[in-house]
């Protein structure tokens, strides 16, 4: 840490980034909520992030003056709604630095994005005996869709191992790649460990075998600048609700040539250009993959969240959060009997830990009494828990509206947990 101690002790304005956290907090009405009579300390951002007023207002305005169905109406409101929705798609295109808006497919969330690829790419192009590579730190949503595909087509799932710090063993990954490998799907940023994986290298290595790569960006998008062209990833999936937008909307980016070659995922309205009982012609991208009336307000709200985030600047966010995570890591690891799970060199925003002889669930209950919201359990990554030999961890996950003072409250809470359990 290079920040001077006098300034950091104030905990308000970081002179290094010029990031005014107190001002940002004003944008999030929920941060004023009291929990058990105490100020909410929301450290469960990896589960879902809170929403700024501007996102809430955008959704509410959409329903008050724009609501209509899209892509079909000739009337004024339908055109308004269509424009708002397609504007959001354009914002997402810029956010990911995709080449075309037709590469941006609205889905319900990361999970649906991955399932879409597993089925629509996997079923036609992955055959018996082929291999799909994932990593040992994936969320269940990047494991189960591939297992389902493997069962359907007779392919095999191969898993890149991780080391004790929670870093991918890149040499082992290299050994897994071969002529049978037909797909690679890995997390950009691990939800359970906070590890940022060397995804550019992973993609390069896969492409040498002509293998497409999907990145699960659910955790990365709120914290890291993502450039799908620079990464050269073939698919990128993320969720709106972790990006300070609404639940029930997410995005799948895919390279246009791959998406063109894939059959639709769902059949229905909006994804067709003509239907007869003899033959249906599918719509063009991205609509081919968007059957049915979508979450229009959600898409529009996600656009507002991206505007908001751009206004703050993801680089300022990343710098501030990095400093906050360093502060939290140091403070939590100084508590006797606390062990961090996930100590990769490249990390963001996730602090997973276990307390000696105290189950994560008990830690979570006692912290909740202090107003501190963390996640406890297996974080939908049971293989990660098995890898580290723990049934569960406590996980504090940060966002740019969290403060050093809140980290201090977390630390005091963990000390209280130890006091409660020291009584006997």
């Amino acid at each position, binding site marked *: 840490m290079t920040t001077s101690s006098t300034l950091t002790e104030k905990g308000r304005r970081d002179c290094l980034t010029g990031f005014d956290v107190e001002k940002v907090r004003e944008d999030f009405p929920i941060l004023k909520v009291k929990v058990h009579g105490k100020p909410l300390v929301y450290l469960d951002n990896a589960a879902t992030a809170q929403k700024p007023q501007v996102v809430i207002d955008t959704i509410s305005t959409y329903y008050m003056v724009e609501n209509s169905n899209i892509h079909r109406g000739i009337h004024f409101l339908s055109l308004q709604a269509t424009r708002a929705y397609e504007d959001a798609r354009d914002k997402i295109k810029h956010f990911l630095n995709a080449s075309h808006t037709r590469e941006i497919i609205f889905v319900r969330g990361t999970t649906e994005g991955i399932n879409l690829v597993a089925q629509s790419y996997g079923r036609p192009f992955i055959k018996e005996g082929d291999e799909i590579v994932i990593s040992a730190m994936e969320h269940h949503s990047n494991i189960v869709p591939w297992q389902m595909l493997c069962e359907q087509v007779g392919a095999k799932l191969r898993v890149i191992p991780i080391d004790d710090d929670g870093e991918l063993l890149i040499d082992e990954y290299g050994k897994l790649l071969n002529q049978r490998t037909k797909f690679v799907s890995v997390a950009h940023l691990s939800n359970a460990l906070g590890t940022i994986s060397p995804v550019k290298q992973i993609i390069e290595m896969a492409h040498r075998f002509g293998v497409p790569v999907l990145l699960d960006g659910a955790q990365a998008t709120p914290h890291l600048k993502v450039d799908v062209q620079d990464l050269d990833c073939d698919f990128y999936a993320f969720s709106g609700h972790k990006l300070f937008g609404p639940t029930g909307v997410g995005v799948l980016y895919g390279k246009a040539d791959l998406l063109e070659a894939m059959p639709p995922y769902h059949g229905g309205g909006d994804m067709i250009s003509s239907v007869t009982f003899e033959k249906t012609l599918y719509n063009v991208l991205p609509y081919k993959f968007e059957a049915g009336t979508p979450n229009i307000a959600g898409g529009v709200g996600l656009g507002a969240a991206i505007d908001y985030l751009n206004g703050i600047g993801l680089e300022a966010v990343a710098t501030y959060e990095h400093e906050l995570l360093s502060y939290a890591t140091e403070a939590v690891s100084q508590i006797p009997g606390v062990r961090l799970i996930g100590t990769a060199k490249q990390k963001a925003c996730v602090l997973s830990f276990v307390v000696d002889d*105290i189950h*994560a*669930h*008990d830690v979570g*209950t006692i912290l909740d*009494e202090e107003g501190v919201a963390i996640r406890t*359990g297996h974080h939908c990554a049971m293989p990660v828990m098995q890898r580290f030999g723990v*049934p*569960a961890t406590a996980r504090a996950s940060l966002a740019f509206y969290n403060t050093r003072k809140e980290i201090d409250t977390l630390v005091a809470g963990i000390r209280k947990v130890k006091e409660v359990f020291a*009584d006997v």
Partner: protein
Amino acid sequence: MSDVGQLYQEVILDHYKRPRNFRKLDGASRNAEGYNPLCGDKVTVYAKLEDGVVRDISFQGSGCAISTASASMMTTSLKGRTLAEAEALFASFHRLVTGQPDTAPGRVELGKLAVFSGISEFPIRVKCATLAWHTLHAALERKGQTVSTE
């Protein structure tokens, strides 16, 4: 006492740190496994029945303070009880932890188990407190499959 103090009473912490009857039971006539996917708690309950009486009972597994202490105190409360008494005790215990008034005709004295009354303030932890009991119930019913709280 704070709510957390109500929950983590000394007796509970004692049974968590020093669980009683924490072993595999040789010659058990019944056993079942229980699992709480929410927190990863796992428990195996063993029971030796003779003439409709729980002659011996034990458990193994890993879990939070509430589930471990509940399993431990369940074993100490049930040894020597008839099957009917065991089921009645479970019913009373369930009413206690879910905050329902215990006025049913089959009501039995909970004794030390009353220490779990604080759970009713923490609905998310009811599953922790009842996991071992549900598992025992399955063992007594000879259901044989793994019990899940979900």
